């Protein structure tokens, strides 16, 4: 997602907000695919043993509604694999909290898309890492590009806004122009990409899949050259900034969001390993206050310093540290 920045000119910041403006909720760690570049440690059989049960998840939804949080993103793993997925969505319908779903695009048949539309989902972000079936299958073992493109078409037919996400690796950076064109042709209103992160499953396959700096230079040059051509049709969003620069900025300007892990723990942002409390036991508003305090913890700044010295330390993102 793009950074949420509160203009300082008005003197307001995230710390002044009564609750987050955005909640990114990883509903499950289970996934139908074993993507080489996954920034989570998700995959088949990878559900946490203690993921939130249906009743617990519904209670979290109720807290999100009560806190008047404008936007929540359901991700995973693959969020559609949760058996209570549509019940959670249904609870949010008509409440004023908009929902975005982030999916691998393999389960978007017409009836599923019709149900998503019925639940008034604001947007669905679909991963599409190229225009070649072979490339997609190599990066996402078990995936089908045709299912992704058919799924996007089903979403559009159901009237749902579509975002496309592209994760660059050495195997697909060369397909960026065609993938942007395909996304636009399929009716996506936004296209997201940025540098691959050295974390999650990507750590194990980094040597095989990471794009070189020369490839990245060409990759971003193509995006910049073409982004203008899509103005008015598809918003092209890309993060050229490295993770350390992003985190340094965040230390000064904490994001107006937090992450909910599949077991209910609350995490500051994806790019930090720090958690502070759990929605299993704590109230969402109290946890928001803890998150705001956590951004000022010396251990957070130290971790960013450590990353500056050793970018490889980012591989520790899934060794969660409770603040």
């Amino acid at each position, binding site marked *: *997602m*793009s950074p*949420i*920045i*509160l*203009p300082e000119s*008005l*003197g*307001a910041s995230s710390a*002044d*907000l*009564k609750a987050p*403006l*955005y909640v990114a909720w990883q509903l499950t760690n289970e996934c139908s695919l074993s993507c080489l570049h996954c920034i989570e440690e998700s995959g088949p059989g990878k559900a946490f043993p203690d993921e939130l049960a249906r009743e617990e998840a519904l209670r979290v939804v109720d807290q999100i509604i009560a806190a*008047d949080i*404008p*936007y929540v993103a359901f991700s995973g793993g693959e969020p559609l694999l949760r058996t209570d997925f549509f019940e959670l969505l249904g609870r949010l319908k008509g409440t*004023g909290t*908009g929902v*975005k779903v982030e999916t691998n695009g393999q389960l978007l048949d017409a009836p599923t898309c019709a149900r998503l539309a019925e639940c008034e989902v*604001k*947007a669905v972000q679909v991963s599409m890492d190229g225009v070649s079936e072979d490339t997609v299958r190599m990066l996402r073992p078990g995936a089908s590009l045709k299912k992704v493109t058919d799924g996007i078409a089903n979403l*559009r037919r159901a*009237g749902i*806004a579509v975002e496309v996400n592209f994760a660059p690796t050495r195997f697909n950076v060369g397909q960026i122009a065609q993938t942007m064109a395909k996304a636009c042709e399929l*009716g996506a*209103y*936004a296209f997201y990409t940025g540098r691959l992160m050295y974390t999650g499953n990507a750590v194990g396959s980094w040597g095989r899949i990471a794009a070189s700096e020369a490839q990245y230079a060409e990759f971003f040059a193509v995006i910049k050259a073409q982004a203008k051509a899509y103005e*008015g*049709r598809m*918003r092209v969003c890309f993060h050229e900034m490295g993770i350390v620069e992003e985190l340094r900025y965040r230390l000064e300007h904490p994001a*107006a969001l937090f992450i909910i892990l599949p077991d209910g723990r609350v995490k500051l942002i994806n790019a930090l390993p720090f958690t502070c409390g759990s929605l299993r036991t704590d109230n969402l508003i109290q946890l928001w206050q803890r998150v705001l305090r956590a951004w000022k913890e010396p251990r957070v700044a130290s971790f960013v310093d450590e990353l500056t010295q050793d970018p490889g330390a980012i591989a520790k993102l899934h060794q969660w540290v409770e603040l």
Partner: protein
Amino acid sequence: MGYETLIRKSWLTGDFRVPAGAAEAADHGPTREELRLKVRREMENVIAREAGDAPWCLSAHKEGCMKLAPFVKFREEKFGAVLFETRSEKVYTLSPTGAAVVREIVAGAGSHDLAARLQGKFQDKTGKLAQEAMTFLAELKAKGLITE
């Protein structure tokens, strides 16, 4: 004429008719009716994408009132309020005056009576508040945060 050229031409000219022979040009291409439907579906997609929710916006226009755009959320805060545009994930922080303007819009104010409603509520005899509110309103419209 290729499909994309046809779409671009329709978009630029507002003429959605398929020229004679366009469908027949390709032996194995779509039929005239299929092409017409394809163009129509694409145009509907473009409209929906541009306007967020075309039927909703048209209904707001018909009622003559202003509404927050479908992808905009408003939340009051101690410092005023925030507008969150979910499509771009942009946040706009509002001062108490800005919050009062948006509160009136949410309550169903039209651009014709917004100033009067604010003047009445805030006992603004100088007219400065109303003036500021109208400037702010124009800004909100320009950013696509409200529709009328």
